[in-house]
C-alpha cells in the first residue's frame, strides 16, 4: 500500500498543484516540492528501517489487489532493494527538478508541475509495478507528460524534439505491448490461466523462437529508452531542448527505466534469448560508449554535449547487463544512481548558466572561474565524476562494469576502456570551454550560485562523493535482486549446457 501511496501522492499533488496555480503560482510550487519531499523522506525512512531485511528471501514491500480479474490484471506492486534505491533517486531528482524550475518556469506553472509530478509518478510506477499490464500503463504515463514538458517549456526547437522523443519511445513502447500480449497469450494457452502477473509469467515456458521475438519486443522499448546506439538519436534533441527540469528527469530517471526494464523483465523472463543475444548487446553497448563519447567531444552546445555523454555512459550499462556477472550487475546499479546524480547535476549547471547568459553555446563561454569559482568547483566535481575519477560514484560503477565485462569478453572490455580516454577528452573540454581560458564577454554576466541553486547542487555533490567512498550502501540494498536475476540466467546457462551434454 505504501508504494501505491507514493504514486498516489504524486498524482494527487500534481492535480492539486495544477488547480492551485490558478490563484497562486508560488503555492503551487511549494505543493509540488512538499509532495516530492514527503515521498523522498518516506522512501529513505523505509530504506533505513528495512536495512536488515535486504538479504531476506521476500520482497521488502508487496501489495496485490485483483483489479480486472477477467483478464488477469491486478494492481500488484512490489519493491526490493533495487526498486527502493531507484525510487529514492526518483524522488531526490524530482525534488531537484521542482527547485530548479522555481525561477525558470514562469508560464503555465500549474500545468508544468502537474506534468512534472505525473512524470515522476509514471517513473515511480515503472519501478514498482509487477503486473505487466500496469507496467505498460505507467510506461505511457511517464511518456506523455514528458512530451508536454519538452514541447511546451523547451527551448527554440522544442516541437521537433518533443515529437521525435514521442515517436521513438511510443513506437518502441508499442512493440513492448505486443510482446506483453504475446507472452500473456502464450502463457494463457499453455496453462489456461490468463494473467499479467510477473511472478506467474516468470514460470511461463516459451518456445525458443517465440522467446526470441518476445524478448526483442521488450528489449526494443528498453534499449530505445536507455538508449543504445543506433537508437539514441532522440536523446540529444530531447535533452538539449527540454527545460532544465525536463533534462534532469530525462537523463537522471527516464533512461534508468530502460536499464531497470532489462534487469527486471528481459533477463528473468527470457534468460535463454538474452544469453544468445549477449554478445551483440555488449557490442552495441561498447559502440554506444565510443560513439557517444566521440560525438560528445564534437558538440558545441553544452546540453547536447552532456546528452551525448549520457549515451556513452549508458553504453556501460548495456555492456554490464549483458556480461552476466555480479560485479557487472552491481556496477550497473551503481551506474544508474551515479549517472543520475552526475548528469542531472550537469544539466542543473547548464540550466544555471543558461539563466545567466542565455546561451548554451560553448564557444561563447570561457573564463568563468574567476567570477564564479563556486559553480566552477561544483562543475569540476561532476565533470570528474563523468570521466570516472576514483573516489566518486561513477568510478565505482565503471570499474565494476568493466571488471565484470572482462570476464565475459576481453576485447570488448578493452574497447570500452578506450571510452574512458575519450571521456577524459570531452569532460576536460567542458572545463576548458566554460571555466578556463581568457574571460569571454559573457563572463561579466555571470554571478555565482544563488542559495536556491546551492541547496540543489551541494547535496548532489556530497552524495556523489559519499557514494564514491561508501558505495556499499547501495550494493547491500541491491545485492539480493542482482543475485536473483543472475541466478535465473545462470540456471538457464546450466540447463543449456546440460542439454548440450545429453543430446550431443
Amino acid at each position, binding site marked *: 500500500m505504501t508504494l501505491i501511496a507514493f504514486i498516489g501522492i504524486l498524482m494527487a499533488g500534481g492535480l492539486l498543484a495544477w488547480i492551485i496555480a490558478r490563484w497562486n503560482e508560488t503555492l503551487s510550487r511549494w505543493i509540488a516540492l512538499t509532495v516530492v519531499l514527503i515521498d523522498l523522506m518516506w522512501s529513505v525512512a523505509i530504506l533505513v528501517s528495512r536495512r536488515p531485511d535486504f538479504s531476506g528471501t521476500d520482497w521488502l514491500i508487496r501489495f496485490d489487489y485483483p483489479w480486472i480479474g477477467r483478464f488477469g490484471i491486478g494492481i500488484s506492486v512490489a519493491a526490493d532493494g533495487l526498486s527502493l534505491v531507484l525510487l529514492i533517486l526518483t524522488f531526490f531528482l524530482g525534488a531537484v527538478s521542482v527547485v530548479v524550475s522555481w525561477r525558470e518556469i514562469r508560464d503555465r506553472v500549474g500545468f508544468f508541475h502537474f506534468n512534472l509530478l505525473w512524470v515522476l509518478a509514471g517513473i515511480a510506477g515503472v519501478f514498482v509495478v509487477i503486473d505487466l499490464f500496469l507496467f505498460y500503463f505507467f510506461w505511457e504515463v511517464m511518456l506523455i507528460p514528458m512530451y508536454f514538458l519538452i514541447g511546451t517549456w523547451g527551448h527554440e526547437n522544442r516541437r521537433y524534439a518533443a515529437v521525435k522523443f514521442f515517436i521513438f519511445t511510443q513506437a518502441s513502447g508499442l512493440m513492448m505491448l505486443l510482446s506483453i500480449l504475446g507472452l500473456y497469450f502464450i502463457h494463457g494457452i499453455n496453462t489456461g490461466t490468463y494473467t499479467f502477473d510477473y511472478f506467474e509469467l516468470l514460470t511461463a515456458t516459451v518456445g525458443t523462437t517465440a522467446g526470441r521475438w518476445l524478448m526483442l519486443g521488450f528489449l526494443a522499448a528498453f534499449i530505445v529508452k536507455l538508449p543504445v546506439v543506433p537508437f*539514441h*538519436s532522440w536523446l*540529444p534533441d530531447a535533452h538539449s531542448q527540454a527545460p532544465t527540469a525536463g533534462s534532469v528527469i530525462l537523463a537522471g530517471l527516464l533512461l534508468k527505466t530502460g536499464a531497470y526494464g532489462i534487469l527486471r523483465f528481459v533477463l528473468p523472463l527470457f534468460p535463454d534469448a538474452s544469453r544468445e543475444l549477449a554478445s551483440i548487446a555488449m557490442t552495441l553497448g561498447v559502440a554506444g560508449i565510443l560513439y557517444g563519447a566521440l560525438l560528445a567531444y564534437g558538440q558545441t552546445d553544452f546540453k547536447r554535449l552532456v546528452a551525448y555523454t549520457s549515451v556513452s555512459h549508458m553504453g556501460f550499462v548495456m555492456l554490464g547487463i549483458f556480461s552476466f556477472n*555480479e560485479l557487472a550487475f552491481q556496477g550497473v546499479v551503481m551506474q544508474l544512481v551515479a549517472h543520475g546524480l552526475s548528469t542531472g547535476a550537469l544539466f542543473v549547471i547548464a540550466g544555471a548558466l543558461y539563466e545567466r547568459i542565455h546561451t548554451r553555446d560553448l564557444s561563447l563561454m570561457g573564463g568563468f572561474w574567476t567570477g564564479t569559482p563556486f559553480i566552477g568547483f561544483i562543475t569540476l566535481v561532476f565533470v570528474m565524476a563523468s570521466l570516472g*575519477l576514483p573516489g566518486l560514484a561513477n568510478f565505482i560503477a565503471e570499474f565494476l562494469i568493466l*571488471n565484470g565485462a*572482462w570476464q565475459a569478453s576481453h576485447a570488448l572490455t578493452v574497447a570500452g576502456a*578506450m571510452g574512458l580516454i575519450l571521456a577524459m577528452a570531452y569532460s576536460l573540454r567542458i572545463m576548458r570551454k566554460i571555466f578556463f*581560458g581568457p574571460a569571454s564577454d559573457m563572463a561579466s554576466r555571470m554571478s555565482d550560485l544563488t542559495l536556491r541553486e546551492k541547496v540543489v547542487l551541494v547535496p548532489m555533490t556530497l552524495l556523489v562523493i559519499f557514494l564514491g567512498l561508501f558505495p556499499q550502501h547501495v550494493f547491500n540494498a541491491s545485492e539480493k535482486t542482482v543475485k536473483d536475476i543472475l541466478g535465473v540466467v545462470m540456471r538457464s546457462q546450466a540447463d543449456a549446457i546440460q542439454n548440450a551434454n545429453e543430446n550431443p
Partner: protein
Amino acid sequence: MNAVQYLWLVPLLPLLGAVLLIVAGRNMSKPIIASIGAGSVGLSALTVIVIGVAFLSNPDVYEISVWQWIAVGNLTPSIELHLDALSLMFIFVITFVGFLIHLYSVEFMGEDSGYARFFACLNLFVCSMLLLVLAGNLVLLYLGWEGVGLCSYLLIGFWYEDPKNGYAARKAFIITRVGDTAMLIGLFLLFATFNSLDIETILSAAPSRWEQGSSIATVAALLLLGGAAGKSAQLPLQNWLPDAMAGPTPVSALIHAATMVTAGVYLIARMNVLFELSPVAMTTVGVVGAVTLLIAGFSAMTQTDLKRVLAYSTISQIGYMFLALGVGAWSAAIFHFFTHAFFKALLFLGAGAIIEALHHEHNIFRMGGLRKQLPIVFITFLAGAASLAALPLVTSGFYSKDMILWYAWAGEKGSGLLFIAGLVGALVTALYTTRLVIVTFFGYANTRVSKRPGWRMTMPLGVLAALSVVVGFLEVPHNFWHAQLISGFLGGVLPAAVIDSGIEAYEWALQLLAAVVTLGGIFIGYFVYMATPGLHELVKKKFPTLHQLMYDGWGFDALYTLLFVKPVTWLARASRGDVIDGIYTGIAWVAIAANRAIATTQNGVMRWYVLGIVVGALLIITLGILV
C-alpha cells in the same frame, strides 16, 4: 602496534586541509590559508617521522583497514593502509619534501589571487599521493593514482586564463590516462586470475599461479608498465612532462619531479614479483628506461627554457630508475628515487627562485651572471646540479647512479647495452647540467634581479641542498666503506639484486669509468659553454635538423598529433551532426515526400475519387479471380 596505528592520520591531515580550504578558503586571509596548507602537511610529516621511528624499532608489515569500501562478490577492496619499508620511504619523501615545498610556496605564491585554490590542490595532491603509496590494494592505489593525476591537471592549468596552460594540463591528464587505462585493464586481468586485488594476496599467489615466463604474466606486467610509463613520463608516453612545466614552479618541484612522476617506479617496485615472473617485461622496463634516459637527456641539452631542461632531466633520471628496475636492482631504483627527489626538488625550487627574481624569465640565455646576485640560490643550485651530474664521491647522485650502473653491468639481468646507455646518459647528464649552471650563473648578467627570495624560500633550498649531499651516504658501495642502509632497509620488501658471480672485482674499474665519464661531461660542458664562447652556436648551426629534433623532444608531439589527435578531432567534427540520426531523418524525409506525393491525388474532384473506387474494386475482383 604503537604509533603505527595512527597511520591514517598521515593522508587524513592533508585531506582535511584541502577540504577546509575548498569550503572556506575564499573567506580566509592569506596567513591562515598558508598555515592550514603548509601546517597540515607539516603535521603529516611529523606523524610520519614518529611512525618511522616506531617502525624502525620494529620493522614489520602493518595493515590498517579503515573501512570496507566495496564488497561485491570476490571483489572486496577496503580502504586500507599498508605500511612497509618501501611505502615508508615514499611517504617520508612525500610529506617531508612536500612540507618544504609548501613552505616555499607560502612565499612564492604570495602574490597570487588563487592562493587558497593552490594550497587546496597541493594538499589534495599530497593526500592522493600518500594514498597511492600506502594503498593495500590496487583499487585504492588506483584512486590515489588518478587523484594525483587530477591534482596535476589542476595545478598545471593553475593559471587558467592562458589557454596554453590549459592545453598542457589536458595533455598531461589525457596522456597519463592512456597509461592508466592500460593499468586498469591490467587490474581486470589480475582480478580475473587471482579473484582479489589485494597486493599482498596477488604477490604471494602469483608465483604459484603463473609459471616463470608465462605469457599471461608478461601481459599483466606490461599493462602495469603502461600505467607506470604514463605516470612516470617514460617512452612512449613521456611527452606530457615538458609541457607540464606550465604550472607554478613549486608544483613542478613537488609533482613533476619529486613525487608523482616516480609513482610508476613505485608501482613496478611494489609489484616486483609479477615483473620477476616475466623476463620479457623486465627487459622491456629496462629498455624503456634506457631509451628514455637517452632521448630525454639529449633533448635536455638543447632546451633554452630553464624548467624544460629540468623537466627533460627528470624524464631522463626516471629513465635511470626504470633501467634499475629492469635489471632487477630494486633497491637501486628506490635509492635513486630517494636522492633524485631531494636534488630535483632543490633544482626546481632554485629555478623558481631565479624565475621569480627575473620577472618570470624562463630563457636561460637571457639569464647569466646570477652567481653574484643570488648567492644562496647559486650555492644550493650548485649542490643540486652536482648531485644531478653525479659528481663523484661528494654527492648523493653519484652513489645512486653508480649503483644503477653497477647493476646494469653486473646484474644477472643486466647487459652491456643497457650499461652503455647508462654511461652515455651519465655523460649527457653531466654535459647539460654543466651547460645549465654555466649559462645561468656565469657570464654577463642579461637581466636585472628585481626580487630576492625570503627565508621561507631559502630555507627549503638549504635543507634540500644539505640533504642532496648527505643522503648519498646512506648507501655506499661496499668497496668504499660499505653502508647499505637503504637496501638493507628495503630488504624485507624488495628482493636483492642478483649479480653475476666473479664480477665484484671489477667494481673499482666501473666506478672509475663512471667518474671519468661524468668529469668528462662536465669538462666538455665547460669547454663548449665557457672556455670557447660561441662554440655551442656553431654546433647548433652545423646540425640544425638534429638540433630541432632534439629541441622538440624527438617529434613525439607531432607524431601523436598526426596519429591520434587529428583523426579523433576530425572524426568528432565530421560526425558532430550524428550520422546515425541521418538515417532517422532520412526515414522522416521519405515519409514526408510520400505524403506530398499521395496528397496530390486528393484534388477535390469527385469524379476522380469515384474512378479510384472503381479501379480499386476492379483490381480486387481481378485479384480474386486470378488467385
